[in-house]
């Protein structure tokens, strides 16, 4: 429970920070995205599709996307401590964050990328 609260407050702070940054640097922000997938598992496929859609629609070329299949090389997952698939690791000059799951909540993903249209509202 404590963990959730902590995560919430951290998330809230991150969001606030991002909201300010993205206003100015929307197009300059460089996203380094790595999506860890497990072969052709449905959840992985779904995440890959959602992510690609979002990249095209919102990121306008200011990103690098790498798809890593964990079933091919376990050493990368070991290094990055990726235990679940799919896992998306987002890195920008400002922050690093990780999201686990099929990315079924697009709004959440946009928020994480600092592209939320609803702003501060959850």
């Amino acid at each position, binding site marked *: 429970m404590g963990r959730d609260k902590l995560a919430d407050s951290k998330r809230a702070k991150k969001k606030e920070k991002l909201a300010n940054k993205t206003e100015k640097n929307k197009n300059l922000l460089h996203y380094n995205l790595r999506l860890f997938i*497990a072969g052709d598992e449905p959840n992985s496929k779904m995440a890959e599709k959602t992510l690609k859609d979002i990249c095209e629609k919102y990121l306008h070329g200011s990103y690098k996307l790498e798809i890593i299949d964990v*079933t091919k090389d376990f050493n990368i997952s070991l290094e990055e401590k990726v*235990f679940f*698939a799919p896992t998306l690791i987002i890195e920008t000059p400002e922050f690093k*964050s990780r999201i*686990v799951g*099929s990315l079924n909540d697009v709004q959440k993903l946009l928020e994480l990328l600092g592209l939320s249209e609803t702003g501060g509202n959850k």
Partner: protein
Amino acid sequence: MSGNKRKTLKKTPTYIIGLDEILNGGLPHGRTSLIFGTPGNGKTVMGVEFLYRGAINGEPGIFLGFEETVKTLCENALTMGFDLSYLKKKNLIFLMNGQIEPDVIVSGKFSLKPLLSIISGKAKEIGAKRIVLDALDVVFGLLENPIQVRSELYQLNLWLMKLGLTTLITLKPREGYPGTLFQDYFYSISDCVIHLDVRQLDQVSTRRCRVVKYRGSDFGRNEYPFIITNKGIRLIPITKFDLRHKPFGERISSGIKRLDEMLGGGYQRASCILFAGEPGTGKTILASTFVTQMCKQNERVLYLSFEESPDAITHNVTSVGLNLERFLNSGKLLIYGTMPEATGVEEHLMRLFDKVESFSPQHVIIDAISACERIGGKEAAFDYLMRILNFLKEKGITVVLTNQTSGRKSQLEISGNGISSMVDTVIFITYVHGEKEVNRTIQILKARGSSHSNKIKGFRINDSGIEIYDI
């Protein structure tokens, strides 16, 4: 041991002292076992010891911990003498810290595929035979719903079995699930389930271990107390009474001729003799007389005193002409004084076991068992005595117990702490109040497997020792 005709299950020994005994050989080979308990019950320690002992016995292993860091794990293991870093360097063990960052965000369903890939990759690399998944509840708690928990757990188990790994999962109960649903999933994939808990009883806490399930195998069904020592976990199964007790040996002298006559020739070697009586009746002197007799015959005696210090004992008995000092000096006698309150049952047991192992006495005196209740209540005293007697009887060691009674001649009180089934001979000393004087009498209340006198005799102590006379 149930005489089954079908093929017996292959076991992987844990090499943890006492645990393999109640598991009837070890954990199910190539399958999954579960240790369940609330935090602080010794789950991780048991897991680490399973891997450590496996590795030093030629079975490399993987430790995947979702709570502790590798650094603290190694440090903690070292306090028990388990040098994990060394084994790691030798590629006999692989330690992975699987702590999940608190701000990880979950959105939608996911699988444990990467984790499984890491496990199989590493298992092949070091030739692992064993794996411990410590605090797996942390991982499965992230899954969105019980159905996912069940299916991912099933996948995990299948994967581990395919790799031929003997798996040990440790698990805490998890909130937010109805009843025991969460652990029930883990139970269903586990062939063997062990519960650990810590209980507080009369100010003394005891760790307990219980096997609740073992598919295809018999197991010890009791609760077994254990301790975590600087050499790891130690657990002594307390059942199996009488199974391996040595038969009585020849007659040995009590050191008092008249008493030997009453007993039908003396005490029996490897039997358990109890001296019961009120304070001051001479139980310690009776015991010391026996000690003197045995040491004179060049046999070794361990004297465990709960009441007096070694110095006090040796000094007090000089007044009746007994000189124990010379046997202490010649190494025939070892007096070990300890306060019952000093520690719990387990620690007391271990200390005594260690003394017995290192000194290898032929006879052990415990003076007095009535003090054992101060270890932590009646139950603790019973537990302690039963296990000591069992241990000593297995080794064919003669045991002399003294028990202080309050004066009423109740049979229950005389035999003390409900251990009467383990006691073979009972000698009772009591005061007899005459008109002008108080005398003492001695009688034999019980002597298993031998004929004995039913007469009550006079019992006197003077400066040359004990005297028994007809009345």
